[in-house]
């Protein structure tokens, strides 16, 4: 058996998605590797809690901070789009791809 059999790099598809977003944005020059390491380093050291693993949930948090600082997407915009995806998922039969256009809209809620 080879000692090179590393575990799969991503435990779940969303981990691969957030990883790819961060690398693509660096490739596009939106932020540098140094800025990214600083943002991730800050995300894993909350003021009021013990230090956290530098896992992909923290990648998400660090990316949101950068996007907010750069005024590319703020929390409210992301929350709104997240809710749309949650509604779309709800309206999508199990096993079908979850597409944003299947969002019945927030107006459908009561």
């Amino acid at each position, binding site marked *: 058996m080879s000692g*090179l059999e590393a575990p799969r790099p991503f435990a779940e598809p969303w981990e691969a*998605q957030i990883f790819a977003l961060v690398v693509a944005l660096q490739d596009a020059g939106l932020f540098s590797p140094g800025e990214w390491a600083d943002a991730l380093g800050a995300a894993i050291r909350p003021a009021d809690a013990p230090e956290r693993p*530098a*896992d992909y949930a923290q990648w998400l948090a660090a990316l949101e901070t950068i996007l907010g600082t750069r005024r590319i997407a703020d929390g409210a915009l992301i929350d709104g789009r997240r809710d749309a995806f949650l509604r779309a998922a709800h309206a999508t039969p199990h096993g079908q791809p979850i597409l944003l256009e299947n969002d019945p809209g927030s107006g459908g809620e009561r």
Partner: protein
Amino acid sequence: MPGHDHDLDHSHGSELSPIEARVRALESLLIEKGYVDPAALDALIERYEHQVGPHNGARVVARAWVDPAFRERLLADGTPAITELGIGGRGGEHMVVVENTPETHNLVVCTLCSCYPWPVLGLPPVWYKAPPYRARAVIDPRGVLADFGVTLPEGTRITIWDSTAETRFMVLPMRPEGTETLDEATLATLVTRDSMIGTGLPQAPR
């Protein structure tokens, strides 16, 4: 929602966890605003899931074991030597390769977050990104090595290398004894991921 049909809502609808929905939201917003291209995202995932990994680093190590001139170039300036083998890319722009010797064992950590030499080792294992390793590698390297089942001779010094966004370290482990007759490809199969981080040693030949 009109007609609260629990059976319909929960048995037949799909589910996204809160984090899945949030990542999808970011992705769709960034695509919509033109910051990222979906095809580029797919290509990145394909690359890091299937192409980049410690088998790349193992090729570098095996080459250094059989080719003294390459070893010298690798230790003098890691990045161009690694590029000679067609290996490179993000996370490997400034590679420093540190050589284990009978006197010195090298151990790599990122105390800030999880900086890691992606082109040669792939993406870091979970333990590399966790607070205990980040902290203990520096204050108790021998204890960390013991946890990994590695015991070094008492006289061996341990040097810690703290990876950063700019500089990523990789360990060149010592060639195992009894491998004089093995070719480069066979030698590469003895190189483990952990031996290139410093938390392991290469496998012994069979």
